[in-house]
């Protein structure tokens, strides 16, 4: 918690928060990192396997194989999410399942499943991007900023 926030608290509150913080079980960050590395790496290895498969057996080059590979991974994610396996994997793996494209797929699919009961238009349509919407927005926005920086550097920086 930032110090600015702490200033708004009464002394009793601050005292209690220090008291409670000491007893709070912390996230095992290092262990989580290792798990995320292993599981995330496995997902990426599977992705690499799928793209190699497409290159050997279909007419995709390294340039064009990305799209079908992502589609396949998201399809697998859809099945895993629908069968209720993905969230359990995620509890174990954390960032390992959230960072690859499967995490994005899961965010969209889980929201779509969740709000199915409210109908297709207002339920699924309206809530599908509840979680993924901000990923798309800030993804596009940061891509724009990076493109801007690159253009400026090339035009005026002589890169």
């Amino acid at each position: 918690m930032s110090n600015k926030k702490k200033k708004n608290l009464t002394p009793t509150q601050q005292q209690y928060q220090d008291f409670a913080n000491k007893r709070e079980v912390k996230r095992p960050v290092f262990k989580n990192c290792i798990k995320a590395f292993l599981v995330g790496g496995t997902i990426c290895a599977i992705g690499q396997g799928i793209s190699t498969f497409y290159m050997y057996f279909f007419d995709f080059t390294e340039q064009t194989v990305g799209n079908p590979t992502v589609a396949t991974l998201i399809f697998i994610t859809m099945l895993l999410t629908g069968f209720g396996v993905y969230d359990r994997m995620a509890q174990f793996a954390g960032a390992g399942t959230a960072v690859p494209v499967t995490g994005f797929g899961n965010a969209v699919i889980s929201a779509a499943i969740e709000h199915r009961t409210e109908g297709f238009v207002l339920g699924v349509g309206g809530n599908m991007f509840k979680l993924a919407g901000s990923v798309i927005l800030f993804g596009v926005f940061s891509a724009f900023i990076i493109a801007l920086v690159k253009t400026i550097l090339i035009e005026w920086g002589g890169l």
Partner: protein
Amino acid sequence: MYKKTIVLSILLVIIVLSGCNSEDDNRIVRKDSDENITKINKQTHIEQAITNKAKEIIQSKSEVTGVRGVNTNKDLLLAIEVTQIEQFNEQNLEDEVAKSLEKNYPDLTIEVSSDKKIFIELNELELKIQEDKVNKKELEDQFNKIKKLMNEQA
């Protein structure tokens, strides 16, 4: 029990996949950790001397670990494999290789690719040429297909 099944199924997949690769190869093959070069060895009715020469030139570059290629009278297509670390620099290497070859063969259109897919396709085409399984027409078709793949954009 469960674990055993998984291990067994993985093994099975590996065996099946590697089983597909045991084809006869009559090319001159030199393979070690930093060299993976093949040459059409006998005089087939499709002349590949240019490619063979070009491969030697490219292989002398330390970043390049493998080469496959096929040529016609007008074109030369080459696929290169580079070391892990040079993968970041692949596009520049392609240009570099193409330029160095253009000096030697000014009248040929040379295209170099570092794409895995092109490498696979050229390898197959080489094998076919070696076995004399293609006529001029088929070669032309294959050649154009690979050329098209090379220029595909994602």
